[in-house]
């Protein structure tokens, strides 16, 4: 993937729009996931995602190829989201309430996504609850903690990669991730308590992915 990305970058630098389009197609969902995880507002996340790609195109000539393309791309996205959050003064437009779940469907508004409501109301409610939990969990974190949690859990980056994206030491990545998880868990427990829901028993943990390129001494 890295080699493919670099080939596309080189072609895009030479003015090949089709190559750049392929990069956008390849990464748009992942970029959006990070953006949305950080800002938790759909429209803002879409705007930031677009801006990230425009910025990438603007500065294509500066990309040296010393790191992977997605490292550079994710760095842009994270920085754009952090800039946005700071500008907004943390007054985020939260997406996860009944009002925000309204959307226009053929000119008519509905309280919950209409397609899922009519097809599967249970699924729609589950989605809403999941979204609220995510909001609670992520919303309790600072931008720095959000960033490491998202890059690790959603994008699956190694500590080394995260350190490159965020331009911090690997030790700082580990420390932030440790605290991010603890704060997030506390926020989740508090959320469940407030709703009167039981805190679920821990299930069997997933097999940790062994990353051949990120073995570190302990």
């Amino acid at each position, binding site marked *: 993937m890295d080699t493919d990305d670099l080939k596309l970058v080189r072609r895009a630098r030479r003015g090949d729009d089709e190559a750049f389009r392929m990069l956008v197609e390849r990464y748009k969902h992942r970029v959006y996931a990070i953006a*949305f995880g950080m800002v938790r507002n759909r429209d803002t996340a879409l705007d930031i995602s*677009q801006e990230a790609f425009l910025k990438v195109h603007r500065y294509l000539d500066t990309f040296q190829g010393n790191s992977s393309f997605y490292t550079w791309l994710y760095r842009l996205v994270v920085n754009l989201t952090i800039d946005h959050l700071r500008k907004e003064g943390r007054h985020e437009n939260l997406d996860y309430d009944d009002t925000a779940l309204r959307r226009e469907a053929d000119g008519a508004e509905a309280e919950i996504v209409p397609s899922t409501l009519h097809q599967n109301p249970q699924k729609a409610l589950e989605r809403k609850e999941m979204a609220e939990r995510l909001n609670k969990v992520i919303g309790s974190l600072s931008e720095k903690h959000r960033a490491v949690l998202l890059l690790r859990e959603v994008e699956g980056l190694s500590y080394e990669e995260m350190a490159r994206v965020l331009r911090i030491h690997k030790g700082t990545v580990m420390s932030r991730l440790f605290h991010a998880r603890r704060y997030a868990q506390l926020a989740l427990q508090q959320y469940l308590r407030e709703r009167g829901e039981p805190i679920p028993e821990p299930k069997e943990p*997933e097999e940790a992915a062994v990353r051949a390129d990120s073995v570190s001494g302990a």
Partner: protein
Amino acid sequence: MSPCEDLRPLLDRFHDGELSRRARARVERHLAACPACMAELSRISALGRELREALESECREVDFSGFTERVMQGVSRERPLPFGERLRLWLGETLRVYRPVWLVSAAAAAAAVLLIALWPAVPTNELPGEKAPPPTVANGDSPPAEAPQVIIDRMEYAGERSMIFSVSRNNTTVIWLYDMNRVHPGKSEGDEL
């Protein structure tokens, strides 16, 4: 320090696959005998799963149709036009807007002028036996001591800041660059002239 306290900081790295083989084996042995640490590992795992599921669900709901097109449109808007095209547009716009300007500026610009390149061919008051005076270059601050006699034969171009014209003798082409502030004191760029 208890084994749990000792190993707890390693649980995140164990979960993320960031431990050496030896350290990983040590944690695995401990987990096999410690429900508390196993429960903590499960919580770490569950949190990640929850985040992924929530964001995947969100991504499924988003309408990405048109996203790439909008990005590509933005790319096109930001891309500079070829030089020739830009020059053509600029000249066209400038002449359209400022056509009356050069008629006024031609006379007023004599006080601040920069002559380039073909100065020796410009006619001067030259007596036989005398050498032509060296080219005089004036910037916007001080006009040349003796302004040359120049008769405009044909105006090639006239814009806000420059004029290109040919003089009556020797097929000379002159490029004038003049200071708008001197031409129209008090006016600034962008003012209607």
